[in-house]
């Protein structure tokens, strides 16, 4: 099915992806992704598992390099940049990993303080207050001295969110921020994403399989399938799409009978 008309604005995009291809050995994951992300919007990436959503997110921050195609971040091409050249750009991005990827050897507070210290903030009072603020947002300020190993999966993810937002990035990439969380915390995280957008004009790219979250937070929804953009439009356009695959995906229908 061809992608419906794009809902992207005409203004110069914050992130511009053109013809992105990526393969791992013989497995073609991305096969020509074209996508623009505007400053301040919340874009939700959906699609079946294994269709390259996380791979696309890692390309946006330069953790993976494309086989072909280009990625522009605020007018700067990421292609061909070394790790050291990418570092200043990456400090403008917050990234929540699927499994949170907290540092085992650091406490919760030290994990959250890490991006601030690495960004060169030396004032301990400022670091402390910003860590406190970030942990309060995810309601984990009472657990700041714990080691990550002593946290539940959901708590680890919330610490990961605190670490992603503490540096006040311009864009936050969330890889399944609510997977494994209970419905109440999921709602807290959904509201947090929207609050960051409204208060700080933060751009968000969110991968999620939680359809309720999708419609709660998305300004725009992009569905990946077979390595290409299968759908790119507003939540209303997705909801009313005549495409049976999309409708089955939204409704969670596998077609199997018990």
């Amino acid at each position, binding site marked *: 099915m061809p992608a419906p008309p794009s809902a992207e604005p005409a203004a110069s995009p914050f992130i511009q992806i053109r013809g992105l291809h990526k393969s791992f050995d013989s497995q073609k994951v991305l096969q020509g992704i074209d996508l623009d992300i505007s400053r301040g919007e919340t874009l939700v990436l959906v699609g079946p598992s294994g269709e390259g959503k996380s791979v696309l997110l890692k390309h946006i*921050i330069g953790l993976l390099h494309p086989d072909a195609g280009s990625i522009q971040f605020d007018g700067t091409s990421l292609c061909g940049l070394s*790790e050291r050249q990418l*570092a200043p750009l*990456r400090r403008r991005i917050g*990234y929540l990993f699927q499994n949170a990827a907290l540092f*085992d050897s650091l406490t919760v507070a030290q994990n959250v303080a890490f*991006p601030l210290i*690495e960004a060169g903030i030396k004032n301990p009072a400022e670091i402390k207050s910003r860590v406190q603020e970030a942990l309060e947002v995810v309601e984990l300020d009472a657990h700041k001295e714990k080691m990550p190993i002593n946290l539940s999966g959901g708590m680890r993810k919330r610490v990961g969110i605190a670490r992603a937002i503490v540096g006040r990035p311009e864009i936050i990439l969330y890889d399944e921020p609510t997977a494994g969380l209970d419905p109440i915390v999921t709602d807290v995280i959904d509201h947090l994403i929207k609050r960051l957008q409204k208060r700080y004009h933060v751009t968000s790219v969110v991968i999620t399989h939680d359809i309720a979250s999708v419609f709660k937070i998305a300004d725009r929804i992009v569905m990946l399938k077979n390595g290409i953009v299968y759908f790119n439009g507003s939540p209303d356009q997705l909801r009313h799409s005549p495409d049976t695959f999309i409708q089955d995906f939204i409704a969670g229908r596998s077609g199997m009978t018990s």
Partner: protein
Amino acid sequence: MDDSPRGPISTLGRAVLNFINYFGQLGILLGEGFESLVKSKPRLRLMMEQIVRIGFGSQVVVIVTGAFTGAVFTAQSYFKFRDFGIESTVGSIVSVSLFRELGPVLTGLMVAGRVGAAMAAEIGTMKVSEQIDALRAMGVHPVDYLAMPRFFAMTISMPLLIAEAVAFGLAASWFVAVLGFGIPSAWFWMHTIDHTNLEDLSYAMIKGLVFGILIVVISCHQGLSTTNGAVGVGQSTTRAVVFSSLALLVTNFFLTLLLNYIFPMGTIT
């Protein structure tokens, strides 16, 4: 996929390519290390932590290794030297051997086993649990944060650990020779000091530095290139110890030839 059996030439060619590729990767890591020296900020706290782990934490194993090597080498030398009536010179052969070969090599092997394995396992676990990607995502170069503090800690710790191993080896040698076999202490020390010179100490320190660099580069490379989850961490850990130990033994031979050219043995100072 080509399932046909590979001929010996093809297998040999592949092994040579893998070997060259491996050295290329080590070279790239070394290059990134030099770049880090110039471009990254010093991480003193991390370096001190690593000195505690590598240097302070390895002392017991190094002391035991040095002491018992010195003791057994003294006993064996005494049994043979006694036949020629030169048993009082046993300290000199033990001292030179400890400084030039046994101290650096055995300390290096023990550190490769203890520290190299820990480095590869820790960095490898960080790699497979995306912690290294998290570092990169926050604009931190993994070589700056993980490899360089270990590199500095190792280059500082290894010569000191070797000095410690040699010192305890000589002390054990004295116990065995003087208290065990009744060699007069004055004779023991006279021969030991007469036949040990600054060049022997230089041997130990230079070898310690080179072995330390070998262990840290090989182990960090194994950790940073870990894939395939827990199984991959195990493989990286094993490879770090095996490759470090083999590299250390092979390098030791060529380093001995080179150092003997610089500091020729056979003159008594």
